[in-house]
């Protein structure tokens, strides 16, 4: 009952956010230079043909008109069609001006639906790795504020954050894939292909989790109920893992929710480096090709994902800590 009302309110707010984001991105994409029709039709196409195609596609209508048309599609679950991609989903280069002979263009929704699961798999695994790296270091640091573990946490995060992900990607691929032949690195052929990119992503996010954990664990371990728990007869492991961990989980969850967009930025580069056929690679190609419907679609879907993730985060936070206002 309560959760339902909370969900309704947050989803309504989320819809508003998505609407705002769509409007903003829609407008921005239409003022940015780089005529998509030029890219669709190819560099050699004459101006008149460009204008004709653009007018046909409604790209010369006023932006509000275009936006209204677009949003009415979005509401019905139609994110439009890619400007440049054929239905088979290949990333294509613009070389032909004879656009009329293009085979059917791909539905944006299908392109996203095809790639998103792989990215979700990658992101989840990355998160698992990141937590596996960050929790021991961060908690240990938080349990000894000012001591060596705290410093180790600090230095580890300094080093990790200084590693550019495309540098790290190459090094890890060389080491784990080329030299040791432990893991496949490039493309996607099954779960094993996710491990290496996830590791790179994990190292990228881990410093922030470490930092957040050291701070929140230290803060929680200084609280009265933790101090008194030993006097009440609870064992140290009970105190740390049941009470400390549970209380530290709330700030951690919030961090993860907020860092979502950062994760997406990382996914972009990592997927490109590893040629991992996920949403990130799709985004890079869409950006490179000025595939506006696709960029818009991705933006809307990620905004929606962000909204949903944060609703889940808030819901989980309130489940963990019922004091939080719904």
């Amino acid at each position, binding site marked *: 009952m309560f959760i339902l009302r909370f969900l309704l309110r947050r989803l309504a707010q989320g819809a508003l956010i998505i609407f705002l984001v769509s409007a903003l991105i829609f407008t921005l994409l239409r003022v940015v230079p780089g005529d998509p029709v030029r890219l669709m039709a190819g560099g050699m196409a004459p101006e008149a043909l460009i204008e004709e195609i653009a007018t046909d596609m409604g790209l010369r209508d006023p932006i509000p008109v275009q936006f209204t048309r677009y949003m009415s599609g979005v509401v019905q679950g139609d994110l439009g069609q890619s400007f440049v991609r054929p239905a088979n989903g290949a990333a294509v280069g613009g070389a032909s001006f004879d656009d009329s002979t293009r085979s059917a263009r791909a539905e944006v929704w299908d392109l996203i639906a095809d790639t998103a699961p792989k990215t979700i798999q990658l992101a989840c695994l990355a998160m698992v790795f990141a937590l596996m790296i960050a929790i021991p270091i961060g908690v240990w640091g938080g349990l000894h504020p000012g001591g060596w573990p705290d410093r180790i946490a600090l230095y580890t995060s300094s080093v990790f954050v200084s590693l550019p992900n495309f540098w790290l990607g190459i090094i890890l691929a060389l080491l784990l894939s080329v030299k040791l032949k432990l893991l496949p690195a490039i493309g996607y052929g099954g779960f094993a292909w996710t491990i290496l990119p996830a590791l790179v992503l994990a190292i990228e996010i881990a410093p922030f989790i470490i930092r957040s954990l050291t701070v929140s664990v230290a803060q929680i371990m200084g609280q009265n109920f933790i101090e008194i728990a*030993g006097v009440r*007869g*609870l064992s140290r492991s009970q105190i740390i893992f049941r*009470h400390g961990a549970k*209380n530290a989980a709330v700030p951690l969850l919030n961090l993860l929710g907020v860092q979502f967009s950062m994760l997406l930025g990382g996914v972009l580069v990592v997927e490109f480096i590893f040629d991992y056929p996920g949403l990130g690679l799709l985004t890079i190609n869409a950006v490179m090709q000025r595939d506006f419907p696709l960029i818009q679609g991705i933006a809307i879907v990620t905004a929606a994902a962000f909204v949903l993730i944060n609703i889940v985060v808030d819901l989980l936070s309130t489940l963990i800590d019922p004091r939080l206002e719904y």
Partner: protein
Amino acid sequence: MYDQTGLPPVLEVEGLCVGADLPEGMKPILQDVSFSLRPREILSVIGESGAGKTVLARTLASWLADPLKVTGGSAKFRGTDLIKDPAAARKLAGREIAYVGGNPAGALDPTMTVGAQLVEKLRAVRPEIPAAEAKQKAIELLDAVRIPSAAQRFHEYPFQYSGGMMQRAMIVDALISDPALLIADNITQPLDVTVAAQILKLMRDLTGRFDTAVLFICSSLPVACDASDEVLVLNKGRVVERQVPERLISAPQHTYTAQLIRELPKLWDGTEAAPAEERGEPRPIMSVRGVAKHYTAKNRAQGGTNVVQAVRNVEFDVFQGDNFGLVGESGCGKSSLMRLLTGLERPDAGTILFEGEDIGSARPARIRELRRKFQLVLQDPYGSLPPQKSIGAILEEPLKIHRIGDRRERRERARSVMSEVGLSETLYEELPNGLSAGQRQRLNVARAMTLEPRLLIMDETLSALDQTEQHKMLDLFERLQAQHGFTYIFISHDLAMVRRVCSRIAVMYLGETVEVAPNDRLFFDPGHPYSRALLSAAPTLEERRYRPEDCLLEGEPPSPIDLPPGCAFASRCPQAFDRCRSENPGLTARGGRALAACFLNPRRGEETAQTTPETTHA
């Protein structure tokens, strides 16, 4: 009473010494403390703050943190030396030796239900008990400490418990493992008198039932005497006296004890004249008329919102140069009223006139200007000072806010108020975190004084201080009043304090002023049954004029969310009759400038509060 059980002692402390290992050397905290404790015995430990009471309690509970260290002696629990064998001591902690602290608010994990944590604790120290049984035991005990609908409350979170309920839950937490020794460290201090009285009664019941020995740490002599079989007096880390309460009071052995008893404020002792009201032409500096304030709170269970009537029908006048007292238990609306009086919030109805100007409806900028003339001193000596600012900066802040003086003048002013309240000028560049609670409250007062206000509102300013400190502060207030002609409003739950300093006192219950009367009249002839209940519960060594058995009722005040239609006190009033349940009596004059809201008072005509002489000046 001593040795009456004939059982061997549970705890034998011999020559215990504890010191603080500081860079400048070992500083002794406890020196050569020895005593023993038998099952079912309640031993109070009393002493001023800094005497080492809490250190003693924590040493026994294996909870000494750096830089404190045991430097000598032994503490044998059933033959096991807790000092020599810390591992065994830790094993006993929580199981045989239970500890209850004075700060129940933060004592449990806020993210787990109270019940779950009780079960967790029990199963941590006694893993052999199955979960279901543990749950049943927890509910039984919650019920035993009179937590209403315990089975339901079992599933609630700590923040859903009131302070008194939390304290009781913590007692359950301590007793659930059937400990042989209960260390109760200042458990009644943060509580209202009526609640504290209930808790003490409960503790006595329970020790009888479970054969538990209790070490009762306390800073109030009357409470200690009330609660225990024997009293141990600690002074500067040494045991100076151990007596049964009666003997202690009648024949204190040590000068410190004697002084403690002497300084104890008396409620009904006529030797010290109660502050008299200003006679002649009393001019009200503040008049409160029919003030009401409600808040809306989210209802988590059913959705929607609830209206909380925090303040209703509040009426009183405060006269120039007067000491006005506002008493009531927590939740009675004192704090809400304070926010209204200081212009932090605006009333829904009624007027608050300060020197003829309505604070309730003044423009925000005007209120800021008026603030130069009335100031507030807050309750919490720790939270009320801005962190990370030096004492000098704190004192200059009000002057900066009101753009008074230049740098040098402000500095001088700050230094002069510091010396006035008795803070050394060398503290100017220091942070307040090195100050004691008393010094902090002096600082708070000093800060309020820098603007040279006319009216000072003291919101529980003294309640966090021990008796000796309180004494000194009250002297300070008197001196300042004499020098600057301040008018004080004391918001307090401490009747003894109010009795000593206030000339007129208003009693609040559930947002209403149920009685407004001169000091003597309230204490000797209260006009409201609730006032009598308060007086009956007040901690004192004197013979009570009102017996708790007659006046004090079980339970807590009804929730201010769904107030009964009639007199709010009717549900707990021993004398309530039908009319009380249907009609709100309202403040009525009962002669001698006293008013009370009770039908039992003989009416003098049909005068209402608004037409009493004192209000005609408004």
